[in-house]
């Protein structure tokens, strides 16, 4: 083999220049590809947010009918002080408010008047009277939830007769869409005009609290033990592999586990946030363990040496130095795990959290729904009125997620240390 002849200086320059051009080109291509990826992700996010808000804003509104009610005509013989005696709605019911509202509807809109509002629309009036008892002796205009037909007519759906009636009412200014404060207060209902999200939201909050309270300490302690204390042997290897596998198990399997174990132990707490939270904690814990171990591993050994070197005990090393430095990483893992748990539907279906629950849960053990399951249930409804409600519920879910994540990120930034 002969050695190649040395390159002439001009040749060498040409080769270098050609290579350099190629490198610059690939540099630029790579940057463009990266920018395109980010732009695509941004577009998808913007599209999602835009369609959700456009559809969902209507979900926070409700079609309402103006009903003039004369409370001073002597039909209702009540003193404002009597309202405070019991549940105002019940008191007003027995005093004849439902019949009064019906007769006023007939007076204003004819024989079919009562059918223009939902059944039990008088309750809405009763609640408003309870808030301001002085109205008992006045002529009041109530905006009561319109019937599903009229709500549909206002959206442009329904039979020609309904559409015409709705149009006429809207033109005379007695049928209109108003912000529905009620959407944020009560629980589920069968009619889209009456549903509220608070039951599901409260259920989600309670479930998340249980999940966090279980998964965070157990996950962090496991991570600390595995990283700082456990000897390296076959058993710890086995545990490590198991935890990694656990993080990849499909969520419905955890639902089956929750059904078999937790509901087997506590059969009375079906659909309860406590059981839901425990099931989701099983799912979240491995994520926290894995991220926690990585965060603890990333703490420089020199810090451990420094603390040990002046006589800190192992537990002091962990709690004074390692954990505070690992906390940002642990919190990142916790955010990811909790966000996944918040959006999880499948395991909760297994433990009965898909039941129709009208009243918001009043504790950890009372039946409840959660936001994603509520969204799933509403999206399955036939009534078109639920479409907007579903979008509105998705907005509530996203806002909840946003609030949870901002809290975690704020905490993380507070603990972040500069080296």
């Amino acid at each position: 083999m002969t050695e190649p002849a040395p390159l002439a200086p001009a040749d060498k320059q040409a080769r270098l220049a050609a290579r350099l051009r190629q490198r610059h080109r690939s540099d630029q291509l790579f940057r463009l590809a990266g920018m395109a990826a980010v732009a695509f992700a941004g577009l998808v996010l913007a599209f999602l947010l835009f369609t959700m808000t456009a559809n969902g804003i209507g979900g926070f509104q409700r079609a309402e009918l103006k009903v003039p009610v004369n409370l001073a005509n002597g039909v209702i013989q009540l003193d404002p002080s009597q309202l405070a005696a019991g549940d105002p709605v019940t008191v007003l019911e027995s005093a004849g408010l439902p019949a009064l509202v019906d007769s006023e509807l007939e007076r204003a809109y004819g024989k079919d008047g009562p059918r223009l509002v939902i059944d039990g629309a008088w309750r809405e009036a009763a609640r408003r009277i309870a808030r301001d008892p002085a109205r008992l002796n006045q002529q009041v205009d109530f905006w009561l939830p319109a019937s599903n037909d009229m709500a549909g007519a206002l959206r442009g759906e329904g039979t020609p007769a309904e559409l015409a009636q709705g149009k006429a009412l809207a033109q005379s200014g007695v049928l209109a869409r108003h912000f529905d404060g009620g959407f944020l207060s009560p629980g589920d209902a069968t009619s889209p005009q009456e549903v509220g999200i608070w039951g599901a939201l409260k259920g989600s909050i309670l479930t998340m609290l249980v999940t966090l309270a279980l998964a965070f300490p157990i996950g962090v302690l496991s991570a600390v033990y595995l990283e700082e204390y456990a000897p390296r042997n076959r058993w710890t290897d086995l545990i490590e592999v198991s935890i990694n596998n656990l993080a990849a198990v499909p969520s419905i399997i955890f639902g089956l586990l929750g059904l078999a174990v937790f509901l087997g132990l506590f059969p009375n707490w079906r659909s309860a946030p406590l059981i839901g939270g425990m099931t989701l904690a099983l799912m979240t814990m491995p994520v926290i363990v894995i991220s926690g171990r990585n965060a603890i591993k990333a703490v420089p050994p020199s810090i451990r040496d420094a603390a040990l070197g002046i006589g800190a005990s192992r537990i002091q090393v962990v709690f004074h130095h390692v954990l505070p430095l690992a906390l940002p990483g642990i919190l990142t893992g916790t955010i990811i795990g909790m966000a996944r748990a918040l959006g999880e539907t499948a395991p909760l279906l297994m433990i009965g959290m898909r039941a129709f629950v009208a009243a918001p849960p009043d504790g950890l053990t009372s039946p409840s729904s959660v936001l994603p399951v509520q969204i799933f249930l509403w999206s399955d409804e036939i009534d078109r009125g639920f479409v907007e409600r579903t979008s509105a519920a998705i907005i509530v879910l996203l806002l909840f997620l946003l609030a949870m994540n901002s809290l975690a990120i704020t905490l993380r930034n507070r603990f972040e240390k500069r080296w």
Partner: protein
Amino acid sequence: MTTYHELDPVEAKISARDVSVFYGEKQALDAVSIDIATEYVTAFIGPSGCGKSTFLRTLNRMNDTIANARVEGEIKLDGEDIYRSGMDVVQLRARVGMVFQKPNPFPKSIYENVAYGPRIHGLASGKGELDGIVERSLKRAGLWEEVKDRLADSGTALSGGQQQRLCIARAIAVDPEVILMDEPCSALDPIATAKIEELISELKGNYAIVIVTHSMQQAARVSQRTAFFHLGKMVEYGKTSDIFTAPREERTKDYITGRYG
């Protein structure tokens, strides 16, 4: 041949006898015996991987943190075997402080760095006393004038040399009897190194100081006793002046004159 003790009429603070260290199957240190006294600064010199740092870390049981490390032999601190069962490692490390190769202040304020040791050992009762300990320690470490107006700043914001002096202040804040220094100047520039060396000379006599160093000039400047390690064995131990001017062992002479290392 290994020699120890007979050259000093003073009492030994630490006396090690036939100390061997194994990492798993590999023997890192072979039957080292030495006496270390408070009156002198003792330097360990030798080429990389000779076992001098390993030996230093056996003196406050920092090797305990290495999973498969095993120590044989006997090390006594004031006549008390530090490897006996029931020995409290936490208390041992409060008596035998350590300064590491790379400055490693905690990512906390300067004040907290120094106050941490006294606080965990419960040495100060009350804020006033703790303030006093912090000030005294920083003064002894020659750092007080530079940081007294910014004690709340992060310790990691200091320069490398200041960080190392902060680590020394942190070590002396718990008032140890022995200070082990593992190549404390290897990451520092000559000016910062000179300051640390000056500091070592000032601390001499109050604490038994053991310093591991790669720099023979440094050993010659700061120490009164020098031990030369090679391939896991302590080859020679004696007065620093003797080691550098009239080494008895051929290997010591070769190392000192730069034949290898």
